[in-house]
Each structure stands twice: as structure tokens, then as C-alpha cells.
């Protein structure tokens, strides 16, 4: 046992340090000093991001259990930035009377799930992957059930944990069959033992369920709208962006590295899953009134688009996927930031409540508008470029029909995204939501998100610097 191995896990160690410092602060800090808990948490996470912003070269530790790539490092930085933005938006809700006593727990549980995602991203063995997956999903259920006295929140938590454990159980069964047929759990050694026998195909399909659930792709999406609606808004934002982004990246890495011999089979499965995800989610999203449900369906269809980067199996697809996750994160967090602020101030959450928001809160409406435009993929916002790159990656591999269906679906999605914009800017309302000023943290996070939406597409350096680290099958 070489203890120096631990030093190779830089990102994880610095995140654990942040968690431990916050834990000690939360336990031993006097009530007066806990006033500064929120800024401390944000600053610590900020330092953690800055320390790890430049991805380190490929590292293998603990005999191959831990395998970190430069692209994984980029993904970890993106996820940490998203977490920081969620922390800034959560302050409003966490300072309210009911939540303030459990404020410290929110930060620690959230960072614990982030740690699980880190391990999942840099796993080199299915055991490590499984532990990371569970570290990421078990605390997530407690986050969804965070509003202890609200029935909706408890219900969301129950629905999440039961379906999550069910999915991970099926996934484990798949892993056990893979172990039975290949005799190893190391990502490096498994491809040599794969020969697309029926048993291995079944194993792969079972395995796919676990990550498909986390990504909420269509056959496994039933929990998404309910949990998104019931969970506190900041948790929904976290769930829709960070959890989904990490699962997408891990699925891609495992498909590229471990299941490379089964490439034809998994591409065929993904093909139909993508079509179903994008189309069904779009059709359901049209009927939604509750904004959180609306964004749940929108996120299901976005997950379908993200999978377009996976199906190509090239370095370009990988770059496209990571870039898409970055842009999707900024757009979605901007939208959820607005929803969180409005919900906190007025308790209103349906699309009709947003009628005439422009007359009272023009700046919030503007941020919401560019977020929705970016999600729909209208130039010059970043969402257009992310869709463009991911479509290009898929088309390059000859998936013209698939790209065409995805294109048709962007038009459908434009319809329902514009419905919200129309409610805010055009629809008349006798009693629109009253004018209010949002707090500084939310404002800062919204500014960062809007700047990101406006600049991430136009500044080509963002895409190019991600592309430097990518690799194909």
C-alpha cells in the first residue's frame, strides 16, 4: 500500500477538506458567527474551483481503481461551478425561518453528492463506479425531502429513493452478469472479454438502466416530473443540472471505454432512446402549467440531445457533450434562479402567474428570456452553438435521420419555451407579481449565468479549450 496514492486524487481531497471545514464550522460555530456560513461556503467552494481549474494530466492510482483523465477534470470543474451557483441561489430559501436550523446540512449533503460524482467520473472499476453512484444518489433523496414539514417534499424524497434504488439494483444485476462472463471488474480488462453473447447484451441493458435513470432518459423518466415539482427549487436546479451532467459524462466514458466491443448494439439502443426522449418529453412539456414540471420535461428532452454526443463515439462528440452540459447548466440555472426568486417572494410557480412579469420586474424577465432562448437554441445565445456542435458530431457519423428528428423537435420545443416568454412579455394581467428587489447572491448568480449564456457561444476559446482534452473511442 502506497499512501502517496492519495495525493494523486487532488480534486477529491480538496473537496473533502471543504466538507470537513464546513462540518466543523457548523458544529462548533457560535450562533452569531454562523451568520457568515453562506459566504464562507461559497468562498471555500470558489477556492476549491480555482485550485483545480487547470486539469491535471491522466492519473492512475490504487492499481487502476482510480483513473482520472484530463477531460474528467474539466467536467469536475464545470460541476463545481454549477454547485457554487446553486449555493448562491439557495441562500434566500435557506435563510427562511424553517430552513435556517438545517442550513449547514444542505451544504454538506450537496457537497457529499458532488464528491460521489467526482468518484464516479474518475472510476476505473465497477466497484468504484457503484460506490460513487450511490454516494451521489442516496444523499440526493434526503435533499429532495429537505422541507420536512411539506408533504410534497417528503413524497418527492420517497419517490426518488425508491426508484433510484430500484434502478441501481437492476444496474448492479447487470454488473454481476458482466463480472460472471468476463471475470473482472476493471474497465481496462473488461473489453477483452466482451463478445456480444446474449447474456452480455442482457447485462448491458440492465446496466444501462441505472445511468438511464439518473439521466431520466425516456423509459426511465417517470420519477422526474414528480420529484422536480416536490423538491425545493434549489434542489431541483441541482438535480436537473449537476446530477444529470455527471451521469451523462460517466455514461459516455463507460460506453467508450468498457463497452467499445458492443458499439453497434449500444448505438442501436441509444438511437431509439434518444428519439423517444426528445419527442415524448417535448409533447408532454407542451401541456404543463407548473414551471418546475415544465422544466422537468424540458430537461428530459435536453438529456436526449446530450446523448447525441455519446452516440457518435468520437472525440468531437465528447467535446460537444461537455460543452453542451456547460451551456445547459448556465441556461437552466439562470431559469431556476428566476423561478427561485419569484417563488420566494410571491409563492407563485405556474406559467399563468408569470403573466405581465415584464411590467413589474423587467430585469428578471429578461434573464428568463435569454435562458429560454438559449435552451431552445436561438442564435446568438450559447444554446445555439452547443446544439450545433452536438448535431455536427452526430451527423458526421452518418446519423442524418436522427439529427433531422432532433431538429424537428427543437422547433416543437421553441413553441413551449416561447409560451413562457409570451406570458411574461405579451399577456396582460390585472395583478402581476409585485415589484421586488432580489438579494445580492441571487443577483450575482444570475449575472454570471447571463454572461455565460451570452459569451460562451461567441468566445470560441471555451469550445476549443474543452476540445484540447477530449478523446474518442
Amino acid at each position, binding site marked *: 500500500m502506497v499512501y502517496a496514492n492519495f495525493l494523486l486524487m487532488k480534486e477529491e481531497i480538496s473537496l473533502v477538506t471543504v466538507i470537513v471545514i464546513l462540518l466543523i464550522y457548523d458544529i462548533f460555530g457560535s450562533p452569531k458567527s454562523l451568520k457568515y456560513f453562506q459566504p464562507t461556503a461559497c468562498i471555500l467552494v470558489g477556492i476549491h474551483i480555482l485550485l483545480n481549474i487547470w486539469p491535471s494530466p491522466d492519473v492512475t492510482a490504487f492499481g487502476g481503481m482510480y483513473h482520472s483523465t484530463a477531460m474528467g477534470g474539466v467536467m469536475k470543474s464545470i460541476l463545481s461551478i454549477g454547485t457554487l451557483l446553486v449555493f448562491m441561489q439557495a441562500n434566500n430559501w435557506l435563510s427562511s425561518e424553517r430552513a435556517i436550523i438545517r442550513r449547514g446540512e444542505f451544504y454538506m449533503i450537496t457537497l457529499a453528492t458532488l464528491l460521489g460524482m467526482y468518484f464516479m467520473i474518475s472510476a476505473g472499476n465497477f466497484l468504484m463506479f*457503484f*460506490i460513487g453512484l*450511490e454516494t451521489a444518489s442516496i444523499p440526493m433523496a434526503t435533499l429532495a425531502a429537505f422541507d420536512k414539514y411539506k408533504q410534497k417534499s417528503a413524497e418527492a424524497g420517497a419517490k426518488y*429513493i425508491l426508484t433510484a434504488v430500484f434502478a441501481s439494483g437492476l444496474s448492479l444485476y447487470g454488473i454481476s452478469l458482466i463480472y460472471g462472463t468476463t471475470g473482472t*471488474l476493471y474497465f481496462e480488462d473488461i473489453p477483452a472479454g466482451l463478445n456480444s453473447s446474449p447474456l452480455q447484451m442482457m447485462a448491458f441493458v440492465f446496466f444501462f438502466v441505472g445511468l438511464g435513470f439518473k439521466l431520466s432518459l425516456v423509459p426511465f423518466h417517470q420519477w422526474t416530473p414528480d420529484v422536480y415539482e416536490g423538491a425545493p427549487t434549489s434542489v431541483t436546479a441541482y438535480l436537473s443540472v449537476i446530477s444529470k451532467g455527471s451521469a451523462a459524462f460517466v455514461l459516455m466514458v463507460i460506453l467508450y471505454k468498457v463497452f467499445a466491443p458492443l458499439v453497434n448494439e449500444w448505438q442501436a439502443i441509444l438511437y431509439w432512446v434518444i428519439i423517444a426522449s426528445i419527442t415524448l418529453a417535448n409533447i408532454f412539456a407542451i401541456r404543463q402549467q407548473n414551471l418546475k414540471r415544465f422544466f422537468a420535461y424540458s430537461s428530459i428532452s435536453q438529456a436526449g440531445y446530450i446523448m447525441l454526443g455519446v452516440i457518435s463515439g468520437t472525440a468531437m462528440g465528447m467535446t460537444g457533450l461537455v460543452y453542451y452540459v456547460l451551456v445547459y447548466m448556465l441556461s437552466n440555472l439562470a431559469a431556476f434562479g428566476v423561478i427561485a426568486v419569484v417563488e420566494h417572494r410571491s409563492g407563485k410557480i405556474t406559467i399563468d402567474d408569470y403573466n405581465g412579469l415584464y411590467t413589474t420586474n423587467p430585469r428578471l424577465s429578461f434573464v428568463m428570456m435569454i435562458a429560454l432562448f438559449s435552451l431552445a437554441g436561438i442564435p446568438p445565445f450559447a444554446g445555439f452553438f452547443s446544439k450545433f456542435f452536438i448535431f455536427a458530431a452526430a451527423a458526421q457519423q452518418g446519423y442524418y435521420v436522427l439529427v433531422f428528428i432532433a431538429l424537428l423537435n427543437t422547433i416543437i420545443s421553441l413553441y413551449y419555451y416561447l409560451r413562457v416568454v409570451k406570458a411574461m412579455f405579451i399577456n396582460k394581467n390585472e395583478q402581476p407579481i409585485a415589484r421586488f428587489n432580489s438579494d445580492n447572491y441571487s443577483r450575482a448568480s444570475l449575472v454570471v449565468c447571463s454572461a455565460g449564456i451570452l459569451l460562451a457561444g461567441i468566445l470560441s476559446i471555451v469550445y476549443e479549450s474543452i476540445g484540447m482534452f477530449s478523446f474518442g473511442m
Partner: protein
Amino acid sequence: MELHMEYYLVISTIMLFAGIYGFITRRNLLAVLISIELILNSVDINFAVFNRYLFPEQLEGFFFTLFAIGVSACETAVAIAIIINIYRNIRNIQVKNLNELKEETTDKAIGNERI
């Protein structure tokens, strides 16, 4: 005389599908949780058996079983905590009463009470 590996695999497969069936049909949250435990335990059997019969020279499968048992204990603990919280809120744990969150257009589904 030694038992063949297939016997164990048949048992674990039956456990898996019994768990899936129970997960879909049970009307009580605790019964659903028990069904999930069946699934997780069938996986443990699988790993132990594969390791013992096919790859006895190394211990990967046994270790995976150990970790899987630990993790499934965590999952059960968290799930039960959440179920207790539901009980405090609505005073029962029937699945059909978890109907606060749903599509606005759908009707209330009425299920049979079992267990």
C-alpha cells in the same frame, strides 16, 4: 458431491424477478422497500457464486458483495427515514396516498389495499 452453479443462479434470478414484481404491485411503501432488498440480495448471491465457481483465484466478487451489502443498508436507512417522515405528514404509508404530485389532468388512481 458439489452443487452446480446453476442452482444458485436460478434462485438469484427468481429473487430478482420476485423483487421486480413486488416493486410494481405492492401498495405499501415498506413492502416496496422489501422488494427492492430482494433485488439487491439477488445481486449479492450472483457475485458470490460467480466468484466461488468461476474465478476462485481472486476475491473481486466477494468484495463487491461486501460493499453492496453496506451500501444497501445505507439505502434502507435513508428510505425508512423518509417513510417515517411521510407517516408524520399524512399518517399512513400507502402508495395510493402519495398523490400530491401528479399530472393535473389525470384522475385519482384507486388501488387495492394490500398488506
